[in-house]
């Protein structure tokens, strides 16, 4: 087991890459930086593969495989070790992160080729890989939190990559701050868990949690509260209501970053955490329900916003948010494997979408507004084809990846007791909207007449280094879902099977009975889903190909709705009014001008002034005259003698003096 025993090598390689690039890269030509960055991630991808191979040979009783490397924090009964753990869930995440991450690295070498701060970009990117791997390999909440914060940091750094652009810098800050709110909840959750179980290591904690009695619906026991707190963290990281606001702005970052961090990996960390602590969630139906509702709401909410956005990346951003909503919906209804499944497929096609969009932007010379594009399909064929594949995938056309994952989510939503139907309905609506705005994006971008002037913008296909990852991802987003395919003709759902040992413990979702029921429902629901997707396609086709004038009229006719949607329900403004303004007032008026300036500085300056004055007064004793000094010495001597010999309490001292 060479790799399994040295799991740390997998995160270490990107860290090394980051360190080397960050410290030495500034002087190097891009080529060497490429070798370092891509090489390190590629190596860690290979290591991951090897680890998975070895993992597959492990006997089931040795799973999860935990290695304790060194003890990091030891305080009282708390032991937070640098312990890495690998089980089926980790395997999935590991492959997604390293694989997709590697591809995006390759892509970036092409995309960023002309940017300044090249080495900086890759250093950050590798650092992100490191923290992400820590996050998914961690065997306890503390280490996981390290990764959690680390990825947050990297996302901040990369969103603000063009830190000279004010909007970029602000977006970075926004992301960071909003995440802090979530992290606060997360930490509270950790504390509560530690208080409850006396440990933060996954394996023993879950072992303790499993036999516990589950809270009844609507009852808020310790576990429920802990789960909700964790979920707050998740909403922060995974951009769910109400903390989603940072993600659209995060599009200020370079497109590969959007693809890697804000579509494929980091934002799914929330889902991962929920899935990781499913044992706890299984014990609190109310928490589950809340998760489901939040996920569902987010999905529909973001989708509606996505309908009217014109910035290509913004559209993708909102679609990401809504897809994440899907995943939480899945988790909420207890279909964790489905959630993870969608996570994986989504990682493929959403990364593909972003990269393709990046390729488009690259082709348009930095133009992001879809209204200024159009008719690109002939000019950049490969990008177009990959983009189309991804669109089909996300819209849920069989037999592409999206179809299977979304289908299994909807299925489990439909099956779930307490309010399954409503959730299903909303999910379905969301699917419709999704397919609509995705095709809207495709049509606006690639069809119709060119809405840009040929003279300034000369469209050109992207270099190989960008196209190859696109193709690979396209293939993946086609075949990615086939693991679950056999379910339709009575075969097993391999993916669910694979994850079963993880989610089985603590009452897994897919019990055999449910599965039997699922079989019966699977086909009709699938048909419904496909019909929905087609419907969305149809509307988009009708609106943007047949009568291109129509959308404008629609916008006019229902102005209120349109503006509301276009301004994203004024959520940002709302937050600004409710949260930001009071905070600003508090910090400037109270904390800064009162507490800091007047009290603290006042105290410091006062002490300083006092010392000065005291010195001024005392220094007159410094007469520079030896005789005066001598007198002072004499006085001192008298005092000492008086104390030693004539102070009643100092008798023993006096005796000591005499003897």
């Amino acid at each position, binding site marked *: 087991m060479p790799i399994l025993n040295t799991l740390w090598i997998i995160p270490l390689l990107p860290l090394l890459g980051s360190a080397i690039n960050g410290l030495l890269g500034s002087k190097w030509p891009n080529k060497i930086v490429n070798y370092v960055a891509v090489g390190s991630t590629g190596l860690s991808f290979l290591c991951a593969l090897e680890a998975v191979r070895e993992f597959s040979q492990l006997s089931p009783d040795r799973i999860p495989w935990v290695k304790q490397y060194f003890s990091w924090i030891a305080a009282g009964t708390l032991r937070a070790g640098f312990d890495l753990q690998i089980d089926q869930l980790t395997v999935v995440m590991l492959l997604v992160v390293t694989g997709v991450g590697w591809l995006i690295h390759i892509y970036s070498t092409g995309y960023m080729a002309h940017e300044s701060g090249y080495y900086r970009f890759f250093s950050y990117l590798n650092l992100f890989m490191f923290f992400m791997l820590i996050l998914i390999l961690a065997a306890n909440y503390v280490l996981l939190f390290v990764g959690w914060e680390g990825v947050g940091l990297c996302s901040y750094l990369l969103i603000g990559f063009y830190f000279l652009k004010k909007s970029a810098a602000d977006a970075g800050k926004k992301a960071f701050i909003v995440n802090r709110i979530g992290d606060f909840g997360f930490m509270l959750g950790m504390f509560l868990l530690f208080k409850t179980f006396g440990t933060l290591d996954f394996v023993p904690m879950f072992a303790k949690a499993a036999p516990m009695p589950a809270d009844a619906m609507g009852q808020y026991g310790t576990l429920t509260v802990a789960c909700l707190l964790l979920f707050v963290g998740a909403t922060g990281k995974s951009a769910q209501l109400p903390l989603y606001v940072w993600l659209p702005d995060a599009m200020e970052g370079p497109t590969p970053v959007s693809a890697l961090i804000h579509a494929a990996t980091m934002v799914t960390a929330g889902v991962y955490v929920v899935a990781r602590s499913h044992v706890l969630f299984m014990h609190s139906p109310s928490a589950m329900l809340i998760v489901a509702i939040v996920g569902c709401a987010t999905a529909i909410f973001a989708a509606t916003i996505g309908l009217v956005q014109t910035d290509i990346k913004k559209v993708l951003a909102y679609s990401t948010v809504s897809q994440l909503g899907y995943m939480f919906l899945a988790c909420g209804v207890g279909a964790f494997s489905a959630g993870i499944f969608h996570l994986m497929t989504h990682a493929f096609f959403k990364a593909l979408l972003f990269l393709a969009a990046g390729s488009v932007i690259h082709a348009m010379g930095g133009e992001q507004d879809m209204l200024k594009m159009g008719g690109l399909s002939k000019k950049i064929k490969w990008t177009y084809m990959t983009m189309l594949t991804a669109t089909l995938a996300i819209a849920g056309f069989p037999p592409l990846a999206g179809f299977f994952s979304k289908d299994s989510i909807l299925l489990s939503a439909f099956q779930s007791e307490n309010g399954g139907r409503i959730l299903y309905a909303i999910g379905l609506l969301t699917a419709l909207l999704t397919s609509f705005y995705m095709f809207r994006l495709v049509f606006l971008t690639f069809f119709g007449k060119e809405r840009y002037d040929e003279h300034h913008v000369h469209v050109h296909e992207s270099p190989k280094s960008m196209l190859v990852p696109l193709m690979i991802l396209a293939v993946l987003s086609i075949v990615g879902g086939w693991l679950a395919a056999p379910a339709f003709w009575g075969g097993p759902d391999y993916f669910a099977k694979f994850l079963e040992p993880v989610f089985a413990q603590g009452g897994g979702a897919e019990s055999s009975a449910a599965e039997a029921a699922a079989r019966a429902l699977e086909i009709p629901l699938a048909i419904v889903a496909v019909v929905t997707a087609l419907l969305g396609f149809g509307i988009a086709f009708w609106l943007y190909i047949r009568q291109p004038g129509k959308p404008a009229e629609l916008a006019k006719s229902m102005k209120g709705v349109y503006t509301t949607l276009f301004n994203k329900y004024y959520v940002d403004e709302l937050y600004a009014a409710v949260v930001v303004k009071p905070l600003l007032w508090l910090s400037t008026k109270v904390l800064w001008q009162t507490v800091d300036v007047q009290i603290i500085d006042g105290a410091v300056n006062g002490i300083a002034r006092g010392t000065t004055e005291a010195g001024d007064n005392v220094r007159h004793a410094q007469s520079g*005259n030896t005789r*005066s000094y*001598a*007198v002072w010495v*004499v*006085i001192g001597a008298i005092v000492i*003698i008086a104390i030693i*010999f004539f102070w009643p309490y100092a008798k023993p001292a*006096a005796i000591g003096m005499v003897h």
Partner: protein
Amino acid sequence: MNAPLIIFFVLAAMAILGAISLILQSHPIHSALSLIVVMVALAGLYLLMGAEFVAAVQIIVYGGAIMVLFVFVIMLLNAGVEERTNVSKLAGWAGLPLAIALMGFLAAAVARSTDRVQAAAQTGATAPTKALAGLLFQEFVYPFELTSFLILVAIIGAIVLAQREKEKIRP
């Protein structure tokens, strides 16, 4: 009133008078001479207490080396009668009473502790120099070596201090 007591009082008187004249004399050389008187008187007291070796060393080192140095320096600098400036007001009005107070305190402290001292066995026997040597070179050997080092440092310091810059020491 036996012989030793008489001798003691004579020597004590010598010492005190010497000290007083050290204060009163206006010329450094005279002060030095009075100090030498004090030292000789103290040496006599040591002899009276049977500390022969200490007495001898007292005269040889203090009288024969240190005070000679003083006289030498006074002669070298040709120091005249000291000028009576009164810059230090504090010393002017508080000096004497304080000094007397200190003296009184010391005397009182001694008087308080004498009973305990008297309790100790008193033998007028002269301290054998051999025993002193034994003590010095066995029990106190490290302090002794330290003092030698100290002297070395002092020599170097004195040379460095006394030589003029960029000029070889005058013979």
